[in-house]
């Protein structure tokens, strides 16, 4: 299980621009770092992050080895309907982690 801090507002007014924050606990191992014996620590990064608003993809981000450990993403979204906002991120092993929150727009 990956720890993550997810901040999605619970309520918004129609058309409001909301801020979504995602802080993922992850070492983001580059794959370029040698151990003391000279062998490389294998790459272990989050490869992509996706945001789905009621099933519709509204944001897709590719991450790369230059991104620091515990990546922190902030982005904005226009809230126009009450629905589920889900954040999904895929790790190096291909496992998809998911955090979803319901937003009420009224």
């Amino acid at each position, binding site marked *: 299980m990956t720890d993550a801090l997810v901040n999605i507002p619970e309520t918004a007014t129609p058309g409001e621009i909301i801020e979504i924050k995602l*802080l993922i*606990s992850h070492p983001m191992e580059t794959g370029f770092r040698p151990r003391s014996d000279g062998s490389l620590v294998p790459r272990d990064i989050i490869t992509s992050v996706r945001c789905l608003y009621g099933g519709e993809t509204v944001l897709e981000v590719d991450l790369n080895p230059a991104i620091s450990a*515990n990546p*922190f993403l902030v982005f904005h979204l226009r809230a126009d309907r009450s629905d589920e906002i889900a954040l999904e991120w895929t790790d190096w092993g291909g496992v998809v982690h998911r955090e979803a929150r319901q937003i009420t727009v009224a």
Partner: protein
Amino acid sequence: MKRGGVAALAVLLTGPAQADERRSGFDYMGPETQLMQTDDMANPGMLAVQAGMRLWQETAGDAERSCESCHGDAEKSMRGVAARYPAYDATAQSAVDVAGRVNLCRTRHQGAEPLPQEDADLLALVSLIGLQSRGLPVMPDPDPQMSQWRSRGADLFDRRMGQLNLSCAQCHDDNAGGHLGSAPIPQAHPTGYPIYRLEWQEMGSLQRRLRGCLSGVRSDPWPYGSDAYVAIEAYLMQRAAGMPMETPAVRP
């Protein structure tokens, strides 16, 4: 009358200046890094706190007890605790830091193995405990036994060490506020440990930070868990008495 007025003016002038010239390492950071620390949604130290919250409730060892089994809700029982550490433990006849206390609890009450220094789980628990003192003033342990630890810490702080033959005090007292290369030299108030250090890209204890300085002056760092670290921490926390705790702090 005039004389009294001058005296009053002198008090007015010197009052605020004398008030407190101590500065947390926080004050030397750029505004972006400060924001990172103050926004709990952006502070990576809060990930350790979140993990600590989970570990707090997990049983460990032969006794099948969790921290919560004895201490209950960490937010209540651990309030202000980290601000008093290092504290004297009469049974161990030694000063212990918060990590040392967690490990004493593990061996004495949980029947579990102590966690190694800088273990992520140990740092997570210490971060959770430290957070419960955030904003509270540092209040050093009044136990009279602590004074010998503090004087040993003071002695180590003033002692020249390593190939560069530098003491802690030569940077952190004599040149605090100046720069070492491009890095500002803080006054060495350990109010935010464990810290999330951007250079480390993970949480670390004061011991790890002290080791950084020890190898910086080209001396051979004491092994992890050495009494010397606890002595220095006891001395530094005495100097920081009254300053607000910041755990989990972010530092560059």
